[in-house]
């Protein structure tokens, strides 16, 4: 039963169910990826793919294997088993030319504290000049890049003097200085204030829409995943347990909806699987007497929050299968 659900959600997710995508158009193709540290399995067969220009959020509780997955794709970590193709190559053996087409933003950087912002971006950009193509001129012109990430006022500052949010924006700037075709963002907005978060979201949309950059980001924040991603992959217990757009995932959650209304000054609350039928029946019986009608679908968020809570309480495997059953 669980296997069936797995097949449905991972293999026939939005990507496969929508327009069939030729294998060679896949920017990312991960099949049955497994990772084992000693005797502990961290990834139990992760499978997903991404097409050019797609923004994918890898969502999951802490310790679900998000960072391990992304590090394998970045070529920073070996894998125990599985087929992984990133921009047409195996990240375990790919060379510098491949590296030049990737952008990487990790969770925490504290490097190059003595450098000035503009000098550092200019310097790191020079590594990419050899890999410039007519279609993708590399690197990104440094002053334009600084403006895009909103660091113009800090261009002459030493990196160690930047605030947390500014430092993070610099990390993003470094990640995209080579105009990557594929960008990895690991927990990109941790420590951002709401305004910085919004600017960052705009930047991600711009990269995906204007520059056709494929973006894989990890987050444990469902709200952020919904705002940014075309497609959400939920990773829990070392598996992808759901794969689809935020709307598709919401529909998949087979919870009961909550219906609230008032009639003759009294308040009523009812839970129903088929809210539409219930409301139709309600109006048929009472007509105009019904007021203040509210229908709330049991949200993806609630189901996801339960998954997170359970995982953090150390019941990751059970939580993952409960979540799957909810889909």
């Amino acid at each position, binding site marked *: 039963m669980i296997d069936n659900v797995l097949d449905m959600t991972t293999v026939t997710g939005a990507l496969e169910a929508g327009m069939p995508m030729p294998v060679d158009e896949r920017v990312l193709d991960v099949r049955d990826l497994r990772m084992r540290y000693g005797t502990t399995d961290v990834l139990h067969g992760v499978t997903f793919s991404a097409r050019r220009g797609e923004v994918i959020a890898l969502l999951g509780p802490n310790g679900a294997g998000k960072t391990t997955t992304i590090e394998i794709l970045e070529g920073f970590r070996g894998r125990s088993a599985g087929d992984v193709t990133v921009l047409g190559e195996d990240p375990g053996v790919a060379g510098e030319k491949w590296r030049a087409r990737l952008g990487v933003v990790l969770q925490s950087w504290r*490097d190059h504290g003595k450098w000035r912002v503009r000098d550092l971006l200019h*310097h790191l950009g020079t590594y990419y000049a*050899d890999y410039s193509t007519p279609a993708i001129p590399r690197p990104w012109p440094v002053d334009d890049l600084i403006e895009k990430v909103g660091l113009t006022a800090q261009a002459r500052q030493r990196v160690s003097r930047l605030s947390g949010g500014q430092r993070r924006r610099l990390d993003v700037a470094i990640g995209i200085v080579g105009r990557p075709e594929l960008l990895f963002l*690991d927990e990109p907005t941790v420590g951002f204030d709401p305004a910085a978060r919004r600017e960052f979201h705009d930047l991600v949309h711009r990269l995906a829409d204007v520059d056709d950059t494929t973006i894989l980001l990890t987050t444990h924040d469902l709200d952020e995943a919904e705002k940014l991603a075309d497609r959400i992959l939920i990773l829990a217990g070392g598996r992808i347990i759901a794969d689809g757009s935020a709307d598709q995932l919401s529909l998949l959650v087979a919870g009961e909806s909550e219906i609230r209304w008032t009639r003759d000054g009294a308040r009523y609350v009812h839970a129903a699987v088929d809210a539409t039928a219930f409301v139709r029946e309600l109006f048929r019986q009472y007509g105009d007497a019904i007021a203040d009608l509210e229908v709330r679908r049991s949200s993806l968020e609630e189901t996801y929050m339960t998954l997170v809570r359970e995982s953090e309480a150390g019941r990751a495997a059970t939580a993952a299968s409960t979540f799957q059953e909810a889909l």
Partner: protein
Amino acid sequence: MSSISTAARTGFARGGYEFRQTLTTPADLWQYIFPTVALFVTVFFMRGATVPGTDISLGARTLPSAFGMGIAFTGLMTVAIMLVTDREDGTLLRAKATPNGMSGYLVGKIVLVGGMTAISFLLQLVPGLFFVDGLHVDAVGWFTLLWLVPLGFIATMPIGAVLGSLLDGPRNMGLMMLPLIGLIAISGIFYPIMALPGWVQGVAQVFPIYWLGLGMRSVFLPDALTAAELGHSWRHLETVGMLGLWAVAGLVVAPMILRRMARRESGSAVAARREKAMQRIS
């Protein structure tokens, strides 16, 4: 090969930038000046004393040996410390995430440490020539310096790179200092090696510090002082041989160890070390 020229270009740009930074950062400037100050205070307290049986001042005898030690020390310790801190703060991982970044990083480090070694040496050499009686350099001496300084640098820097790769945190740097100080003590820098037991002399002659000190003495001191050296000679041939051996061994081994270390770098490795560092502080 465009990647080799890229590594050279980016490495020189990188090393040059970081070298200029050391000249404008007070803490770095102090690191340049401190050894000079310490050295000249030592020499000041040696004033009046002479090498037994000669009229050469003890200070003049000590200073060239200390030049040699300084080159070994900068090459070894600076590189080791830089590698440990760069690994801890993610600089190395950044290099790994950049195309040809590791080659650029390495060339940059060689340029940076080479520049630092040269400045440190000049800061000791110039005042030494002016203020310490008994130091003389002739044409042959300048020529010796031309090969001795670069060779000494290439012989010691890879050792520092290997040690920096193997140590897994700043806390273990102390482990490295102790044997290094012991090695300096037996290498005839501050105390003539002839006065030490034979087996200690043997140990000292395995390592580059002794040979750098000996080479420096040959540049600045009169040949009469070979009387106080092993074999009563400056032994240039042996110096080139031993330093050359260390250079070749280092250039073979260091890239292997560096590659192994770089392979292990990942975001979670950096994060884990950071966590450990935070625990140390709290």
